[in-house]
């Protein structure tokens, strides 16, 4: 019973997160300017991190947690570097 509830809600929430990644990818591809693309990339990173966490719940192993942590770190670094690039025209001065 509880396995059925968990399985169905995990499937539904994974599909919702995939749809969220699709919306963010739409903004990355079709964003009118560069800052819109960077914003979409940040949302894409967050949705991917949450999707990997739901895969971890589905498989019951804590290995996925480390992948999600690395993705969160990469999201911060990449968005900060891209914002710096948009501001100054170069990343490391």
């Amino acid at each position, binding site marked *: 019973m509880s396995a059925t509830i968990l399985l169905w809600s995990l499937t539904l929430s994974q599909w919702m997160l995939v*749809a*969220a990644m699709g919306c963010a990818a739409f903004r990355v591809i079709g964003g009118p300017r*560069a800052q819109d693309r960077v*914003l979409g990339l940040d949302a894409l990173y967050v949705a991917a*991190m949450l999707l990997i966490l739901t895969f971890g719940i589905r498989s019951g192993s804590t290995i996925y*947690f480390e992948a999600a942590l690395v993705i969160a770190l990469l999201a911060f670094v990449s968005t*900060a570097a891209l914002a710096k690039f948009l501001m100054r025209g170069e990343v490391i001065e």
Partner: protein
Amino acid sequence: MTGLDDFPLWAAILVSLLLLAGSALTLLGTIGLVRFKSFYERVHAPTLGTTCGAGGILIASMLFFSVLQSRLALHELLITLFVTVTTPVTLMLLARAAIYRDRTEGKAKIPGFQNDVPPSSAMASDARPDDPG
């Protein structure tokens, strides 16, 4: 999903509700990212996913592993802390970069302050004269 038949029902229902709420809020945030008209409205939308959405799914994961392993599993707090600290920083940097780009081009409409700072003095405090652009 094997070996979950002795998973308690209250925990399964609670984990499911938190998962569904978190992913639905993330989806709503990215729908806002698609549908809003200007960048300065759009920059607010994905924060719904990074606060409520990530909070819901991370609490669900903490609850699931705590009940599954019969001990307190709180390592997801690391992601919560990291996302909560870094999201305002990156979005502030991005919004400042967008304002700088829009001001140097002078075309796009920038949202003003309520008590209307003239653009010349605001620009002098924001951008240094020796900026490479």
